[in-house]
């Protein structure tokens, strides 16, 4: 029972870059800044490729929503072993204000069109930290979801997923088709090998627009301002525990 896996990969500012807020406070500086695939998405891609190597999956398709440069992210996925890519072209204002709700609708539509059995996403993107796309996609498709996966096993017609939750570890079983979001300890992504990078050039990337999928990407939010977090203030020393408690109450901490 070989499955088709859809993997989402988002192009984000590289995790090692020091972020700077634009002087006009409308966002952060992205021009000329190093971008890479969202680290959690890399983990999702790695898991999908491993599924293919274990013959659980027959085909892996990567999807990325964004401007032309998103194709670079897709090429990275292809170089890791994904079979083909789909670039959903979104640019300009629509891209700046693209929200998980838009992406979930896009992914849901693609999953249906491509007859996918598993959708593997990173749990959240490191730029907006939304942690919504996997959940919303599952809901739109009415598929079961297993989020924060740190282990995925296939058992008969189901997937057994170990989830990292606040209270510890939880094991759930989901019927296929299902949506899974990858957490940090699911695996360690491979480096693309040079031969695979060269092979990736020949793998196809299909370009579509949200319109082709019947999804509207009109902005639903407006960014009012983006600012640096307040600079860390100096602390004070107190004489004794009573003063400490009083001070903490004063600033509303307890």
């Amino acid at each position: 029972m070989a499955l088709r896996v859809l993997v989402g990969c988002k192009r984000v500012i590289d995790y090692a870059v020091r972020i700077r807020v634009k002087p006009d406070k409308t966002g952060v500086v992205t021009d000329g800044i190093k971008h890479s695939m969202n680290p959690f998405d890399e983990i999702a891609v790695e898991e999908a490729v491993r599924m293919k190597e274990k013959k659980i999956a027959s085909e892996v398709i990567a999807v990325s929503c964004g401007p032309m440069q998103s194709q670079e992210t897709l090429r990275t996925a292809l170089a890791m072993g994904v079979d083909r890519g789909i670039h959903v072209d979104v640019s300009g204002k629509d891209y700046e204000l693209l929200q998980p709700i838009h992406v979930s609708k896009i992914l849901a539509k693609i999953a249906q069109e491509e007859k996918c059995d598993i959708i593997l996403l990173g749990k959240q993107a490191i730029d907006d930290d939304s942690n919504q796309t996997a959940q919303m996609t599952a809901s739109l498709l009415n598929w079961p979801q297993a989020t924060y996966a740190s282990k995925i096993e296939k058992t008969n017609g189901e997937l057994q997923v170990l989830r990292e939750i606040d209270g510890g570890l939880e094991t759930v079983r989901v019927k296929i088709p299902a949506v899974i979001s990858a957490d940090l300890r699911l695996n360690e992504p491979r480096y693309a090998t040079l031969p695979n990078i060269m092979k990736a050039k020949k793998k196809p990337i299909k370009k579509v627009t949200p319109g082709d999928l019947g999804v509207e990407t009109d902005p639903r939010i407006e960014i009012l301002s983006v600012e640096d977090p307040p600079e860390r203030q100096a602390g004070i020393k107190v004489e004794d525990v009573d003063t400490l408690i009083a001070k903490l109450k004063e600033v509303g901490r307890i």
Partner: protein
Amino acid sequence: MALCRQTRVSLRLLRSHPIGIASLETGCERHVSTVTSLDSASGLTTEQKHIQEVALNFARNEMLPRMAEWDEKEIFPTDVLKRAAKLGFGAIYVKEDSGGTGLNRLDASIIFEALSQGCVSTTAYISIHNMCAWMIDQYGNEAQKKQYIPKLASMERFSSYCLTEPGAGSDAASLSTTAKRDGDHYILNGSKMFISGSGESSLYLIMCRTGGSGPKGITCVLVENGAPGLSFGKKEKKVGWNSQPTKALILEDCRVPVTNRLGEEGQGFSIAMNGLNASCSLGAAQASLELATEYVKVRKQFGKALAEFQDPQFKLAQMATGLVASRMMVRNAAMALQSGHKDAVSLCAMAKLFATQTCSKLVNTALQLHGGYGYLKDYAVQQYWRDLRVHEILEGTSEVMKIIIAKNLLHH
């Protein structure tokens, strides 16, 4: 789109010919800049950028965190080297048919530049190993290629290049290690000095004299570890390049089968000269420039960040200029080599002369900008500084580079 098809066809043709294709991919793709800049990715094709990204990630994750330890404990990191080989870094510009990765010299230069940000010494060894694999691919017969290249590509075996002798450094052609024919064997006698990887390598490419004096009497012979009569000197204590062992190699009636000869008798010297290549300085220079730039933004004296004073600003400006110029020289030389340009030899010599000196100066200034902290081993800049010092000496001293350039100038 017709232009696209044309370009694609010509690209396929070009892949089989050793011509640089960097400037020709502008046909179909969105216009790719060929401008070289401080961003080392500038001027590269999309594929080269991917390759560079893999190398940079590998350097950042696998090498940078351990470069100080390798230096201090003199560890030859076979585990990391083998992992690098798994990605295709073991035989980068060896043909695919022979078991290599099938990229070109420019691609290799980009890779070494990226890796050297993680550890100059280890990257230098990788480049030497690659050079040996290439020499076998280029000059070996089918049997030799089959026997040696796959294990070199995977770094299951390590290899070393042996040209220099105690009495023959810059005057390499005067080498005196002999290889005397005895039936279907050569008997090697002599010693080699400063051999990188010595002791760890299992395959040595040794230049010896089979004929008369001068370069035309030199032959390249492959000697495997364990060959009778092959032994090593003590491990040298070096100022830098400490992640690779350097030892003298001693040959006392060392017998090797004639089938181990690489190429023809008398061809050895040109094989040796064609192998040598200077990208490792660039990575260290890039890393040092970035470190220095960050440091001066943070370090405050006299009430201001150092970055607000003109002298550090001017120092950084000079360093950045030198880095871009060096990068251009090195990439240009790589393309000249790749395309068989008539000036390739001169251009390579110029690139090595210029880049090694400029990058050394850059890293020296970076250390100075760090002040006292720059002198501490807690800070990476001193390791880049020590590791780079030897680049102006080995694989042809700066002085020899000048001889080559002058010779080409005056004889044309």
